[in-house]
């Protein structure tokens, strides 16, 4: 009999646009992990100002002072590229440039950062909070993504997890995770619609919960629709109100943009509780302005965005072949569902009041922790059957999209397609992979391309290469190919259109190890400086007390002054180490001299007595 493998510590992480949360499943069920102050929400913000990298609340606190050095909402950039980012980038107070392969790079802190790297910094902070709460190191996690994230966005998230030094055991869709937290106790079996409106993304998923089996029937969404958009609209309205008063708000100033964003967010939150709000808009040197905002104003701005989410709800119902009345529970997830307008509009569409049994900010992390428990081997009763949100296909003649795996297919899913050659002796075939619902590939997202090579030279059309497209439980695509006649595995190298190549991930992992060296070097330096300081003080005191010949006193004093100077000049570590060595060499000699003199004295005195 094999002893059961010891259970690993696996946490669930909700990596949000605005906040991130970690949770773990214990004997009593899932709990969120909080920091020393009892805070569960780690702001997904990184600040690179003042010569230090700060993450979480410390970074958020500095966002107003250093808008250009504070990176937030990086989830809206991850796994995307080129023109599709322009509108996004225009709104951000920090600078985003187009790097290699048109990928976004954040120019901050004196270098260019990929969204994956910034996301990894947030994840490291979440990991740190979790480890502090658990008192143990955490090595593996289940991380959630919006259900509507495509392959590129999922892969980029997975890369960020790896860069943060965590093993990513599973990518789980946020609404699905929330449904786990909601339905795990078994009392809510039936059909559930999860409406998840976060800071930057919207998802709707329809699930059937039945005796521990959570089966997603359909999912729909928009990865660029969320509370941020409401904030932006409110911010624009506030700026317009200032202009109406004859005040130029200078919205090109990053400081103003950040202040407007923050004020808009606060107004939105306040108006979830009351009908009207008054705010003091502090624009620093541009003065403070008092503005009024009503819920009616807010709702007029938010209405088009809410209507877009309702279109998604209708589409998901259609795909699940359900009427609104057939849904037993409507579940709200995500901070933006606190807006009364959302609750009202969704309630009207569904014919029943939405419920928020689980805290909308924490439900996703709690669900991720439940799934983490399954993967750690703790829970065998729960079975999660999720779907792929968007169809996967390949480009065929004339730029048509040939769909191989249809949206809302349960994952894992696979499809094997046969390819051949068009020219005699052709030894390779290029295949382009796309994701989307449109009929022409130019209207879909190109995920990447790959080359089937190593095909044995044969007349055109004779090779039969079976290419298997497999979407795993993370919703990620892998491709395998075998030449049927020879049974030879064809080599495949996928070049992703978005995100990081495998080589880049490896390099960044390597760099993070190098950074670990840098961190170590920094610590070494601090220790060396402390040592030098102690030596300077100690030697000076010893000199006063010791009875040394003048030439020795002079050379020790000189070496001590040199070390003190080296400290004051903040010389490189090695130079400091040499100065320390020099002084300790001299003082060691002195110690020897002092001791031998004492011994000599004692001997002489002893002999003399």
């Amino acid at each position, binding site marked *: 009999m094999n002893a059961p*493998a010891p259970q690993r510590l696996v946490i669930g992480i909700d990596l949000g646009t605005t906040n991130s949360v970690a949770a773990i499943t214990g004997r009593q069920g899932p709990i969120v992990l909080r920091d020393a102050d009892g805070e569960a929400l780690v702001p997904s913000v990184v600040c690179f100002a003042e010569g230090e990298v700060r993450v979480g609340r410390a970074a958020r606190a500095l966002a107003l002072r250093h808008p250009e050095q504070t990176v937030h909402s990086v989830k809206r950039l991850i796994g995307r590229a080129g023109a599709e980012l322009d509108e996004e980038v225009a709104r951000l107070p920090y600078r985003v440039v187009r790097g290699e392969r048109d990928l976004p790079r954040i120019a901050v802190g004196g270098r260019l950062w990929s969204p994956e790297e910034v996301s990894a910094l947030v994840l490291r902070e979440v990991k740190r909070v979790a480890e502090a709460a658990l008192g143990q190191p955490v090595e593996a996690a289940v991380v959630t993504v919006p259900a509507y994230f495509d392959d590129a966005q999922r892969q980029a998230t997975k890369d960020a997890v790896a860069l943060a030094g965590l093993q990513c*055991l*599973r990518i789980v869709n946020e609404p699905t995770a929330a449904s786990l937290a909601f339905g795990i106790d078994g009392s809510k079996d039936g059909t559930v619609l999860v409406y998840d409106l976060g800071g930057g993304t919207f998802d709707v998923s329809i699930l059937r919960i039945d005796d521990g*089996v959570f089966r997603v029937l359909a999912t729909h969404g928009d990865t660029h629709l969320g509370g941020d958009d409401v904030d932006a609209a409110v911010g624009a309205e506030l700026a317009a109100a200032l202009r109406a008063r004859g005040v130029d708000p200078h919205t090109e100033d990053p400081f103003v943009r950040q202040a407007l964003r923050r004020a808009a967010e606060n107004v939105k939150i306040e108006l979830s509780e009351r009908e009207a709000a008054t705010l003091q808009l502090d624009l620093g040197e541009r003065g403070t302005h008092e503005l009024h905002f009503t819920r009616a104003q807010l709702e007029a701005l938010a209405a088009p965005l809410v209507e877009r989410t309702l279109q998604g709800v209708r589409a998901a119902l259609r795909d699940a072949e359900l009427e609104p009345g057939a849904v037993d529970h409507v579940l709200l997830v995500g901070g933006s569902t606190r807006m009364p307008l959302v609750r009202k509009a969704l309630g009207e569409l569904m014919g029943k009041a939405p419920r928020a049994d689980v805290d909308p900010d924490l439900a996703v992390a709690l669900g991720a922790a439940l*799934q983490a428990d*399954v*993967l*750690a*081997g703790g829970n*065998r009763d729960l*079975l*999660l*059957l999720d779907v792929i949100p968007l169809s996967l296909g390949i480009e065929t003649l004339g730029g048509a999209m040939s769909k191989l795996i249809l949206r809302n*297919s*349960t*994952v*894992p*899913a*696979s*499809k094997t397609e046969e390819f051949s050659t068009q020219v005699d002796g052709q030894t390779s075939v290029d295949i382009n992979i796309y994701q989307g619902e449109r009929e022409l590939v130019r209207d879909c997202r190109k995920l990447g391309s790959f080359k089937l090579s190593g095909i044995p030279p044969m007349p055109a059309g004779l090779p039969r290469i079976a290419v298997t497209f*497999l*979407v*795993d*439980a993370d919703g990620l695509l892998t491709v395998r190919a075998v030449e049927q006649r020879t049974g030879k595995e064809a080599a495949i190298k996928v070049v992703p259109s978005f995100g990081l190549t495998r080589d880049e991930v490896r390099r960044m992992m390597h760099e993070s190890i190098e950074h670990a060296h840098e961190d170590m070097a920094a610590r070494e330096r601090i220790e060396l400086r402390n040592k030098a300081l102690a030596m300077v003080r100690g030697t000076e005191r010893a000199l006063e007390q010791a009875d040394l010949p003048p030439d020795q006193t002079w050379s020790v004093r000189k070496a001590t002054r040199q070390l003190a100077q080296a400290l004051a000049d903040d010389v490189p570590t090695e130079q400091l180490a040499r100065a320390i060595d020099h002084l300790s060499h001299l003082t060691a000699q002195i110690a020897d001299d002092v001791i031998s003199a004492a011994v000599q004295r004692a001997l002489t005195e002893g002999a003399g007595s």
Partner: protein
Amino acid sequence: MDPFAVLGVPVDLDLDPALLEARYLAASRACHPDHHAGADPDARIALLDRAAAVNNAYRVLRDRWRRAEAIVELRAPGALERHKQLPPDFLAEALDLAEEVAAARGGPDTAALRARVQAMVDADWNALRDAVAAGDFAAAATTLHKSRYHRKALQDLFA
């Protein structure tokens, strides 16, 4: 891959949905990658393939028309491909129907047309069932191809 064998259900046109569901969930539990996170990489790839096959089989079998296609393909391999050719007069009728549907779509009253197309689809299903029962898979294949036009028309009316 034979979807009936994958899920261990009888090759039956009128497959009991409850049985299919139960077998699907049991098979999913047995091979879902989540429940084998500790297995070695080769075993996990095999499980992943198996889980994908289980999901694919379920997709085919829960739709009665796709289930019928699977039966025809299983009993008479290649029959569907061999009997793709449909008589010209049928195609002419199908074209007329498609035009009628396109014209009526979104109009005030499609109920009568809907009932008529539904009757065609029902007739197809009965003919298909008889052909399968009689072991006439050539006829079954032809009926499947024909019914596609009727099902498409019905779908368009609901869209």
